[in-house]
């Protein structure tokens, strides 16, 4: 089989999946709404403001995430300290927080009755803070990974030649970490641009994004023509960003030199840098989680764990674990196939972003229109989770495949190793970290269930996230308290998942010991 044919074969499954789960639903929704689009839809100043605002807040969030995330990532990548690997895993927790709980955490700190005594509610600052809370993990994890890939010998050479740390950073580290950062920032942009939970919650209706407008048009006004037009406009913007990114990523990809820099113990003033970085991390990613934890502890102190003695909690815990595991397995399979197929193909690479760029509201309602008989079935729900989770695996692996040194497998083959052996002994060990990072994000996505409220649900499918929303659907201190407790349970489950996924292999543990 030619390489091209080979690639098409691999791409078949993920492409069919994207077609069935993303493209056809959107087309079906557009077909249903084939009426006239309201005249002056795009001339509406209110709407123009929303598009502009969506763009602006996404761009500002990107810049802020870069400025704050990079120094933190540098310290995490370069310095060894007790709890380092735990911090890297804890870092992913914001990702699984249901938006509403995160907002309650943020308000517990910076709200009108916040612990910190400053009220930022209804200001753009709080919205920006919320965006950073959710998106810093993406930037920090990616930058850490990128910084770890820089060959130690190159850094050492630069230092020997007398370069200052700043110069080393600008001339050696920055160019190497750029593609990794770009990839993360692209995602941050897409999330902030099309995300609709947090902006609305923290900023009020004034700061609603276009996605909110689409949601309103589809699920309340049933105005599918206008919704479709807006969804296409959004797709144009996000699609452009995604393609631009895919192009840049391919241009910037450099083969990996397997000589990674190992973190070392900070010395003297470097401790200060590290402490400052960790403090910054705590401020942006940790505080809201701690606020949730604090409220949960208060609830337990007041009434023990009785709030958790409930068959619903057990059911939800079991379902969350089960559904996420299944979604992650599906995401792993699709991610591998897509990544292998996308080697060297720009359009396949850009397509891995599709689930992030198509409006989730439109997909959810499109699926309902397209497969009404399956709409309340578990496979469809799991497939929707996998749809949002698998691009993480695909993108992470595609990046790793790019930087795979080409001549190593060739050398092994010429020495008589079977393709399987080459994969097991050379390619897999090099790809493993990226695969695991992708899986961890996939698991976080599945556990966090971004679009869960958009889909049909059944009581027997109760998950932690749905239970949290259910509890917060009623008044009463007990309900708020149990929502906080459940959120902590969700964090624990996520942490467990990350530990299992990123469990260091024997070789990695050995390496760590030696360093």
């Amino acid at each position, binding site marked *: 089989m030619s390489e091209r044919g080979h690639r098409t074969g691999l791409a078949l499954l993920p492409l069919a999946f994207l077609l069935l789960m993303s493209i056809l639903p959107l087309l079906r929704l557009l077909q249903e709404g084939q009426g006239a689009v309201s005249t002056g839809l795009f001339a509406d100043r*209110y709407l123009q403001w929303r598009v502009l605002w969506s763009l602006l807040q996404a761009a500002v969030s990107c810049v802020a995430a870069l400025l704050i995330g990079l120094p933190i990532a540098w310290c995490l990548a370069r310095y060894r300290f007790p709890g380092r690997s735990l911090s890297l895993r804890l870092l992913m927790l914001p990702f699984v927080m249901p938006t*509403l709980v995160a907002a309650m955490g943020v308000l517990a700190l910076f709200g009108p009755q916040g612990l910190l005594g400053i009220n930022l509610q209804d200001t753009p600052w709080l919205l920006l803070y919320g965006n950073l809370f959710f998106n810093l993990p993406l930037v920090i994890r990616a930058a850490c990974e990128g910084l770890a890939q820089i060959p130690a010998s190159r850094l050492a050479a630069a230092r020997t030649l007398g370069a200052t740390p700043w110069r080393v950073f600008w001339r050696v580290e920055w160019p190497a970490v750029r593609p990794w950062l770009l990839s993360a920032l692209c995602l941050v942009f897409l999330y902030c641009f099309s995300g609709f939970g947090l902006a609305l919650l923290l900023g009020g*209706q004034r700061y609603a994004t276009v996605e909110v407008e689409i949601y309103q048009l*589809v699920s309340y006004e049933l105005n599918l023509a206008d919704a479709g037009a807006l969804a296409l406009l959004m797709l144009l913007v996000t699609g452009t960003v995604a393609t631009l990114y895919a192009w840049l990523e391919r241009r910037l990809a450099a083969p990996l030199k397997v000589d990674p820099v190992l973190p070392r113990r900070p010395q003297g003033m470097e401790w200060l840098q590290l402490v400052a970085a960790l403090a910054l991390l705590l401020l942006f990613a940790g505080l809201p989680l701690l606020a949730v934890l604090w409220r949960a502890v208060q*609830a337990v102190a007041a009434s023990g764990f009785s709030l958790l003695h409930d068959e619903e909690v057990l059911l939800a815990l079991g379902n969350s674990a089960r559904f996420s595991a299944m979604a992650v397995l599906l995401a792993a399979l699709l991610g591998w196939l897509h990544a292998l197929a996308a080697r060297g193909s720009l359009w396949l690479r850009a397509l891995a972003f599709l689930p992030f760029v198509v409006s989730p509201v439109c997909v959810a309602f499109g699926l309902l229109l397209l497969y*009404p008989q399956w709409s309340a079935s578990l496979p469809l729900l799991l497939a929707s989770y996998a749809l949002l989770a698998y691009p993480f695996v695909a993108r992470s692996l595609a990046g790793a495949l790019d930087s795979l040194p080409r001549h190593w497998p060739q050398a092994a083959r010429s020495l008589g190793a079977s393709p399987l052996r080459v994969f097991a002994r050379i390619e897999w060990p090099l790809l493993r970290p990226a695969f695991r990072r992708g899986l961890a994000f996939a698991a976080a996505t599945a556990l966090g269930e971004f679009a869960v409220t958009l889909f049909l649900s*059944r009581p027997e499918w109760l998950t932690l996230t749905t239970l949290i929303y259910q509890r917060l659907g009623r008044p*009463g201190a*007990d309900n708020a308290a149990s929502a906080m407790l459940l959120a902590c349970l969700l964090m624990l489950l996520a942490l467990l998942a990350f530990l299992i996924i990123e469990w260091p292999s024997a070789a990695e543990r050995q390496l760590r010991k030696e360093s």
Partner: protein
Amino acid sequence: MQLFKTTSLISALLLAGLTHAAELRVLTHSSFAVSKPLLAEFEQQNGVKLSIIKAGDAGEMVNKLILTRANPIADVVYGIDNTMMGKAATAGVLLPEAAERKSGQPQLPGATSIDYGYVTLNYDKAWFAKKQLPLPKTLEDLTRPAYKDLLVVENPATSSPGLAFLLSTISAMGETKAMAFWARLRDNGVKVSKGWTEAYYTDFSRNGGARPIVVSYATSPAAEVFYSKEKLSTSPTANLLLPGAVFQQVEGAALVKGGQQAALARRFIAFLRSDAVQKDIPTSMWMYPVQPGIALDPVFQHAEKPAAHTTPNQQQIAANSAGWVGKWTRIVLKSGQ
């Protein structure tokens, strides 16, 4: 061979599934919470498997029903209310019942009423006590400087209670005056949230927000006592039953047009009106039962039941609500941008 075995096994299972107990698909809003033992009893008595499908709030649910009318996703729907009934009837997604069930009050023309409640304002008692601010006496008071930035409402375009509240103001004042009132409310700093949960848990001063008055339900103060750690003796919130700020919401059930199992579906609706379920509804869904003579849980003494309400009839709502919401959006959200 293995493949053959597997396929035949799967088809045998599928067939077994098809011939097994009949399945009744029940579409509900996400607040549906009839106790499990009651549902199990219904399943057992009728030899039926209930598939409860939750489809978001009442507005989303009706739209999902309309979108899938060619291939209905359910046989019976519960939770449709007087704000959405007209829309569902116009779209023809419900099976009109020949004989309306007349027992129980209030009624929901076009469907069978199951329960009812009131959307109204709740206030944070502690906040008003601390500020020593007298409670507003009329809706108009809320537009005065003394009450600036104190109210949070839900967006009627994305929330059922939000829509209900808007409708009650229009019913009380008439469209023109109501819109002028909303413009004054906007100038006096009314905050608009996406839905009830957002308003209650992030904007209401009782739960970490800054606004001591929130659009909620008349039963919420009772629920506050029911779901309190230390079993409060009085509710931290109370109803603010201003004239023109009370909407009577009637929820009902109906057969879905094109659905199956019509006989079972009717039995399910009768089950929802049975004494056992009607008794269960007040403390599980915080609505009042439509059947007379059902004793309420003592906790309901904390929920003052409104004596009067301003609620447009179903036809008025069906004919005008989209237009009203559009006008409201232009006045409250779009101006000043």
